[in-house]
């Protein structure tokens, strides 16, 4: 099938069998499949006016455009994922024509087949942990020995001396907060890692991006056997209950296409 010069080929994901479930018309954008070397690429045509190198850079500064296109990318891959295993590709992986996409398959087919084999029967789940720092501080002030001691000193001190003790208390409190965040994050991560085959820790995102009041303290992804998902979720629930009073909040999301487990070396 000849692709006109004004279209590019957008690659969503790769599978090793033809999706039964996908109704290409449902998305209104003409998803179709390119077969080569035992693999199917799930693709659609997109216009150069949106996705050529120059226009793509411009559009990447348009948040509404990103929301729309990222949403399409995700929905298509999730639809395919409903009944077969997929290797999801990064947003905006584009080819000038079918020959170039097939050339990619020539180079990567065996690697992709290996990944698909490894991913069979498994799902990606995400866990993000947020911390209400003020609530954690309230806890620590009540129970940390050094903090309790210095609080007593402050109560018994003259105003001049209390000033320096309060400074010291603030320093100790910050140290204790950081220590506890590390401890709780590590403990939680370890409990979840025990329920999973592979894990990945990703960069923290600031409040400006998360739009949450609380600080993100862990951003992690887990590859879990599908038939063990209930165990994984149970552990998340236990951790939620265990740390709620300490100001920790857990966001568990999934199942996701295995974005975190298809990079080179996985």
């Amino acid at each position: 099938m000849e692709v006109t010069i004004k279209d590019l080929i957008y690659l969503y994901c790769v599978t090793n069998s033809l999706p039964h479930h996908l109704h290409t018309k449902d998305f209104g954008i003409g998803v179709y499949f390119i077969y080569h070397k035992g693999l199917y690429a799930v693709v659609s045509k997109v216009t150069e006016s949106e996705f050529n190198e120059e226009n793509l850079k411009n559009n990447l500064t348009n948040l509404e455009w990103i929301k729309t296109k990222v949403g399409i990318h995700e929905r298509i891959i999730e639809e395919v994922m409903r009944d077969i295993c997929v290797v999801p590709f990064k947003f905006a992986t584009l080819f000038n024509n079918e020959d170039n996409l097939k050339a990619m398959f020539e180079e990567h087919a065996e690697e992709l087949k290996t990944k698909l084999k490894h991913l069979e029967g498994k799902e990606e789940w995400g866990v993000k942990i947020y911390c209400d720092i003020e609530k954690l501080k309230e806890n620590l002030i009540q129970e940390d020995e050094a903090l309790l001691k210095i609080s007593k000193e402050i109560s018994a001190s003259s105003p001049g001396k209390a000033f320096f003790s309060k400074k010291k208390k603030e320093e100790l409190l910050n140290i204790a907060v950081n220590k506890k965040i590390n401890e709780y994050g590590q403990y939680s991560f370890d409990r979840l890692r025990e329920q999973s085959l592979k894990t990945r820790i990703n960069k923290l995102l600031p409040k400006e991006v998360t739009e949450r009041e609380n600080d993100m303290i862990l951003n992690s992804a887990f590859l879990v056997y599908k038939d063990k998902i209930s165990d994984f979720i149970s552990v998340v629930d236990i951790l939620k209950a265990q740390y709620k009073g300490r100001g920790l909040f857990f966001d568990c999301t999934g199942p996701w296409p295995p974005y975190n487990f298809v990079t080179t070396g996985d």
Partner: protein
Amino acid sequence: MDNVITKSKDVTLLEVLDRVLDKGAVVSGDIVISVADVDLIYLGLKVLVSSVETMERLRGAPIEGPMQEPT
């Protein structure tokens, strides 16, 4: 087996962006957006350009890197 939990309806744009921009398989396609482009998108999500701390936090990690000071 049945899914014990369906995907939360509260899944935000953040969750999707966190995956499709930064993760997923990467090949030498004719056009693939770069890491710099991804950071630009995050900047567009209300991150103040002037905040060096924010940029450093974007690259931080709690388990493997140094802990951040609480703000």
